[in-house]
């Protein structure tokens, strides 16, 4: 089993299926759907197996303990390698990735779409790219997947998006590409500066890069950032745009509003988490000193995201935009956990990345079902659905509670540990995040009760409850919300070891247990 390149297989599977799809005649929609589901399902099965094997698999001895590592020469002239590997953090992100793409494939299969083959091809290519992002250890490889992901996404959004897709997609693409280009500059800087002259994260980490002397602006002699700090800022900007952190978030609500529901499931479910992953995997490892220096500023932006997203969710009337801003608020929690630079906070961030993927997918599916039945997303025109749709009510209730961080549900685990980490950073952050939790109860209940309770309105007369297929899509998500809330240990048992590695890069003292 160790001779099979599992990680490469994870990338090749969706990409290969995308190529294979071109051989299927367009009118055989069942075959196209079946192949798409098969490819995503096979990926999910492999990831599950990898997660089960990981505890027994011996990790590498490098600065980052990696499992199932694969290294091949890729561009010898540049010393770029094809280096893949996973650890306790990326393993869970991979699981989330495989899960939401499977969900997206199932959601696509449930309804008819025009130009289905092209649509499925693009979805599979997106999966190949996001999987690659999560597996790459080599910076150049990572960058290639990171940018490559945008191509199928762009085509998906500009062809199947909603009314305002044009400006929304343009803003998203230009915004993220601007961020990525900054990151490319920083990657090249690291490549040039690293003594080994390599793009490989492990080789760069093996011999630390000196931060260099700070630029002094000529003539006026003001000391500015060191080159390494500038490189860090480039990385941070790229990831902050991707998450997004307020004030770099304005592409998100418009885009989510224009996004077709099936695409939203994996877009909101995993693409937005890649920024958070980037912070953990690359910013924490490559720039531990800079992260520590700027942690209070970064955490302040995270808290701003939490509060600002919550306030916007409280005042929006469009269902999708409410969920979009709720998502920004939740992503602020994830960012806060990472920026706390504590083991509790980062573990919480990993848990919350998974939780948020589950919750936001469920919420967007529910919003999609409501819109499909009533023809509107305006909260003011909707009410009284509970009596008409008892099953939807139940699933939505659980998702709402998970979304507002109810103890006993999955997101409580993440928010508790994240806020604990934030508390260790400074109690003010934890208290402000607590204010975000209270606002979350407010905006989630506003959304939930607004849709479900009060006497029905014209739009909500005579709507039908969920079909079995729709219910079966939501049921596993809702079950996971409850299960993780009651038994989060399996997740953290896998992630703790890797988190400790990252934290020890920053604060060597923190790895010593028993501090009093």
């Amino acid at each position, binding site marked *: 089993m160790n001779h099979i390149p599992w990680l490469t297989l994870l990338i090749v599977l969706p990409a290969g299926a995308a190529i294979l799809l071109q051989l299927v005649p367009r009118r055989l929609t069942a075959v196209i759907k079946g192949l798409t589901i098969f490819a995503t399902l096979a990926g999910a099965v492999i990831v599950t197996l990898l997660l089960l094997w990981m505890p027994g698999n011996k990790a590498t001895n490098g600065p980052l303990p990696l499992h199932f590592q694969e290294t091949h020469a890729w561009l010898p002239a540049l010393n770029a390698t094809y280096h893949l590997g996973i650890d306790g953090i990326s393993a869970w992100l991979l699981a989330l990735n495989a899960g939401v793409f499977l969900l997206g494939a199932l959601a696509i299969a449930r309804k008819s779409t025009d130009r289905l083959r092209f649509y499925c091809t693009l979805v599979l290519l997106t999966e190949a790219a996001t999987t690659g992002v999560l597996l790459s250890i080599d910076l150049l490889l990572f960058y290639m997947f990171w940018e490559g992901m945008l191509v199928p996404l762009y085509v998906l959004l500009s062809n199947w998006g909603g009314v305002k897709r044009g400006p929304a997609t343009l*803003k998203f693409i*230009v915004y993220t590409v601007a961020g990525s280009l900054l990151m490319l500059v920083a990657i090249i800087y690291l490549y040039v500066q690293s003594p080994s002259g390599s793009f490989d994260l492990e080789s760069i980490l093996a011999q630390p890069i000196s931060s260099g002397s700070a630029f002094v602006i*000529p*003539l006026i002699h003001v000391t500015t950032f060191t080159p390494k700090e500038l490189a860090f800022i480039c990385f941070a900007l790229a990831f902050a745009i991707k998450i997004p952190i*307020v*004030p770099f978030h*304005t592409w998100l609500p418009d885009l989510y509003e224009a996004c077709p529901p099936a695409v939203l499931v994996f877009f909101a479910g995993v693409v937005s988490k890649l920024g958070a992953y980037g912070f953990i995997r690359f910013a924490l490892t490559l720039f531990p000193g800079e992260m520590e220096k700027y942690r209070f500023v970064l955490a302040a932006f995270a808290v701003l995201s939490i509060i*600002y997203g919550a*306030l*916007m969710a*409280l*005042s*929006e009337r469009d269902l999708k935009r409410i969920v979009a801003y709720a998502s920004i608020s939740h992503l602020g929690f994830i960012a806060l956990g990472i920026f706390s630079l*504590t*083991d*509790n906070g980062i573990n919480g961030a990993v848990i919350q990345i998974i939780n948020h993927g589950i919750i936001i997918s469920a919420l967007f599916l529910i919003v999609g079902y409501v819109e499909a039945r009533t023809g509107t997303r305006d909260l003011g025109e909707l009410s*009284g659905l*509970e*009596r008409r749709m008892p099953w939807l009510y139940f699933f939505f209730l659980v998702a709402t*509670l998970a979304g*507002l961080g*109810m*103890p*006993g549900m999955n997101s*409580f*685990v993440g928010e*508790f*540990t994240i806020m*604990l980490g934030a*508390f*260790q950073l400074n*109690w003010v952050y*934890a*208290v402000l995040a*607590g*204010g975000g*939790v209270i*606002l979350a*109860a*407010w905006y989630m*209940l*506003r959304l939930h*009760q607004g849709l*479900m*309770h*009060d*006497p029905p309105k014209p739009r909500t007369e005579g709507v039908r409850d969920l079909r079995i297929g729709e219910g079966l899509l939501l049921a596993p998500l809702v079950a996971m919300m409850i299960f993780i809330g*009651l*038994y*989060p*240990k399996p997740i*953290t*048992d896998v992630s*703790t070891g890797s988190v*400790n590695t990252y*934290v020890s890069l920053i604060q060597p003292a*923190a790895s*010593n247990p*028993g*501090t009093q």
Partner: protein
Amino acid sequence: MNVSTASILVLLVLLFPLAGAALNGLLGPVFGRRFVNIAGTVSIFASFLVACLVLATVVGAPSGHGAITVRLWDWINLGGGTNLSVGMDFTLDALSALMLMVITGVGFLIHVYSVGYMEHDTGFARFFSYMNFFIFSMLTLVLAADLVILIIGWALVALSSYLLIGFWHDRPTAVAAARKAFITQVIGDVALVIAAFLIVLNTHTLSLPNIFARTQAFPAGGALVTGVCVLLAIGAFAKSAQFPLHTWLPDAMEGPTPVSALIHAATMVTAGVYLIARFHVLFNLAPVAEGMVACVGMGTAVMAGIIALSQIDIKRVIAYSTMSQIGLMIYAVGIGAYSAGMFHFAMHAVFKALLFMAAGNVIHALHDEQDIRLMGGLHARMRWTHLAFAAGSFALGGFFLFSGWFSKEDLLGFGTLSGPGPAPWILYAVGVGVNVLTGLYAFRLYFTVFQGEPQTARGFGVKEAGYPMLIPVVILGALSVIVAWPLQFPLPNTLHVFSDFLSPVFAGSQSPLLHDPSFGLALVALVIGSAASLLGIGLAMRLWYEHRPDPQVVLASLPRVIPLLSYNKFYFDEIYDRALVQPVRAVARTARRVVEPDVMDSWVQGIGELLRGFSLDLRLVQTGLIRDYASIFTVFAVVLVVVWVFIAR
């Protein structure tokens, strides 16, 4: 009792109500009303039987071995410097056994009552599902032996309360009340979570027994332990509807009456008292926090008592009475009289559940009329309900030898023992005043509703409630007379079965605010307290018996400001609306209308516009004339040379 027996008991007591909730929710709509009635009540009765077993094992255990903690599974284990390690831990001891008995015992009777009350409601399956789920949540809360698990139970209780307040989800008032209650609870949850952070960062554990064993981490009277206790108290205030987080409770009366009896009188709202009693080890180290708790409790008791005097909705009168009585319990645990507080909790659960259910009978009989000005003369027409309500009123009013008398006098007797300084005496005097108030509002309600003549035509034709609604009321009516007799007498060194039962829990540490009891002082306090209660009842009788003025008229003789404050509930709803809700809404609106388009997005668009403008301008450079290109070339060459010579050397 060994660990495996204890695990089985814990699982059984929890799983019966949970199974009931699942069965009713999933199968109830299919199998119909009879199935739901049976599944809903039997599950709680089974849980009650297990609770009796727990009680028997705790009582029967040799001294010092009455408490046992079991772990069902590991919840999380992060290790590291903080050692965040949480397990699904549950504890069986005297305190949790007492709570189990009250929750499942009173809860079972209320479930039986609900069978009658919800007879004509189409949502019966949902109702019983939620009610069973509430019992499960409440049991989780009181059994939890780890702070995180306690917080989970704490929030689940709030969830069931939310679901049941908003049970009639077509009523906008009920929906709003449910939301208000839930958000208030979340405020309390956040306070508890932050308290948990302080605890785990200083003791490296969240398991309750371990926290209480590591008190060396908390210097007595220090800022740390005071902060922890104040945060815990905020959580308790939110749950127990104490000032300043009390405004949700009266609105919660929008729920069906059995809900008010079970959740908003007998069990959930007393969870704050339980929490402080459970954390008594920490509170005993923080006299400042204790004093704060005692003041808030007594303050709420007075405030709610005054409000209860002028309300005209039968359920709201009882709700404010509940708030006032819980204020007394909070006061008791604040001054360190933990078993007295728990005793009043148990007695109050009995007579307040009774009052609510009897009120429900009245409301039912009058076809959903809740305005007491339109009631009256029911004593002859609803004889059993009347008798039970009278018993409950006497117990609430603290009439000699009724259950409320034992517990309230016991509680106030401790007030004379608290010290130091004059502040405790002021609180005690206020407590005596609360006794007068209690007699007044309890019997104002009783006389207005049951005595005199019916005020509407409908009042002449009322019929007594059916058996499912009557039997629980009568049982609780009998209990509210006799239940205290074998348990406790409010004088030291007399009868103290109840406090002996709880003493293993509270014996370990003693509040610095409490002196040793003295018989003489207690006797004097007993006489004063009883006289105050009698005074209140007598005044009520004089004011409302037979004369039957407008129920609000008595306050009119006082300075105008008091009736105004009382009737308007001290304007808290208005103040919170203006000071908190509206400002947050305004900020949110501003964020959407101004900040998002004009600040957050404008700089992004601005960069775009800038680049566009720049490229438009740059286009003009391409003139196609050689001389223009040559001059640009020359200028840049000169600039580069200058830079190279003067700066980049």
